[in-house]
């Protein structure tokens, strides 16, 4: 899969937080495959996404949203038009 499957706004945001290029933000990108995606960056990403799209994640789901695909799916589930 390619980065085209990640909406531009999410791609830019995650690229800023993990300090990578937006081309690297593919659906498969995850906490397990990216060194800079540690637990604090994860929290930063969650807070940034909440601020960006005006949503609030269920805190119990937060530890599970550890890949771009899962984040994207969760946003869609919450009714965000990506």
């Amino acid at each position, binding site marked *: 899969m390619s980065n085209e499957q990640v909406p531009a*706004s999410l791609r*830019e*945001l995650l690229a*800023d*937080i993990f*300090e990578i290029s937006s081309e690297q933000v593919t659906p498969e990108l995850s906490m397990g495959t990216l060194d800079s995606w540690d637990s*604090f960056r994860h*929290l*930063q990403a969650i*807070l*940034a996404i*909440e*601020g*960006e799209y005006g949503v*609030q994640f269920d*805190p*119990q789901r*937060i530890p599970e949203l550890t890949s771009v695909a899962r984040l994207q799916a969760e946003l869609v589930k919450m009714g965000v038009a990506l």
Partner: protein
Amino acid sequence: MQSDTERQELRREIKDAAARRDAAATVAGARRLLAASSKPADVMFCATAFAGVADALREQLGARRLKTYVVRSVTVEPMLPALAVEAVLANYVLDLEVGGYGSYADELLNSDSSLEKFKPDLVLILLDMEEIAGRLPEMCADGIGAEVEREIEECVGRMAQLLRSYRAGGTARILLQGLVVPDCTSLGDVGEANLPHSLTKAVQGLNQRLAALCGTISDCVFFDVDRLAARHGRARWRDARMFFASRLAVAADSFRDYARGLVRTFATMYRAPRKVLCTDLDNTLWGGVLGEDGPEGIATGSAFPGNYYLEYQKYLKQLSSRGILLAIVSKNNEDDVREAFNVRAADLALNLESFVALKINWNEKADSIRELARELSLGLDSFVFVDDNAVECEAVRQQLPEVVVVEAPAAEPWRLVEVLSEQPFFDAAVVTGDDMHRAEEYRAQARRAELASSMGSRDEFLASLAIVCSFQSALDAPLARAVQLLAKTNQFNLTTRRRSAAEVEEFAAAAGGQAVVVRVRDRFGDAGVVGLALARRQGDACYIDSLLLSCRVIGRGIESALLAYVGEEAARAGAKRLVGEFIATKKNAPCAGFYSAHGFSRFVPSEERSSESVFYEFDLTSSAITSPKWITLEGNER
């Protein structure tokens, strides 16, 4: 909120500016982006851009680098980008290190902790209720709480022990954060307000005690996070969801306000407050235009809409009572203004004597401010200019970039006080007796100038002033005043080292060391503590690390008296040579020839020190430095 295209455009500009290492453009772009959008992603974007130009920020904008260690019991990491960004906007580059959740006590108490090893310039202590006063919520639950007072006492005692223990070994400046009054309690708002030992009252009492504690520790400032939380709404300050999930004590929406509060608070330990506020008159100090409306027609006084302006005048009067000098810079006829102050005296909170200087004429305002700076012997970076006219404001901004310009919101005069108080330039964690008497001292200065012009020779004039210098330890100055002088003296400052209180204490305590201040008075008044010298013994020589004098007393021989005193003390302690050091800065050219003029000769120390230093020595065994004959000395008889 601007469109997403504009946001992307601004981001690209910032990225480009950062790529070509243009610090000013990066910061300007970030300011524009953040003014329009404070989303976490934008803040993080700016933090990354700033991190990439950290060196350029220091080299091109003179940003101060602070190695900053965060002692914490809560999750602060997501807030750090906001902290870094706000710091850069205030011209600091933070090099951040965060301690462990549970190890804060060890970090402060243990001399080989990660905190000590980091060798920070600044320590931020951010603890929450659980750590500082975990038992309070339960003890206050009935509102009667017989034990509450004693518990507060113990909490303060524990914190005092941590701070003192750290201070005994570490020289970093300290910011101690207080507690936020919990918004939801079982007593409810009415119980909290009425019961004698509600949690609200206990936390407020504890905060007051912690603030007082900080006042007793050198280089330590209290951060009243509750005041900040209250301003922005305590209910919104914390996001309970994220607090419970991640121990995040501040909601993401509040990161920037929180970070700004932290920066504004610690900045008072590194930056001296500005000293002079120059105000315009028409549509600023009063409503309307004096030349058109006449003294009866201008709006001022307790009736609406004059009360907008009365409020501003009262604010200025309050600033003046803690040592901020007021001046009028206005394009008007001086006689008309005098008449207005006379006719409308009952409707004005200030009179002409409230101002140390009047620049009421038709000259360019930038010229008037320049003149004022010369007359008051103050740098332009001590000035704030308030005017409602956008053109005047821009002219001053362009001609005098050091001056802070505040544009009075002419269409919304009720906002002027708010606009002023949002600005950090008059912030001070300490107000000394010298501050409060400053206005008086500047008026005495004016009388001295009159006397000088009526006297024949300079010596005759100086003798007629009957100057008395008294010397005392910098620790008794009080110490806060000594540190204040170190922080803000620029013109007559041989080395411009911004020593901290802890460092001054070291100079005083070392064998053969000196930390001395000079207090000056003359027939016109008491100028207070105006000069300081720090020296250390090295071999057979006494090295003067710092020597400085407030610019308002330069040229009366006081600097010579201070040097003579240091020489005498050094000789008394057995030193054979007195070594002076000069480090040139943009501002201290007037004292470049100081040591040569006092019989010192140039020399190069055997171990080459910092290349920017020029060293001078004086042989104490064959002669002594003479103090001017017109100065009476006190405090060096022993």
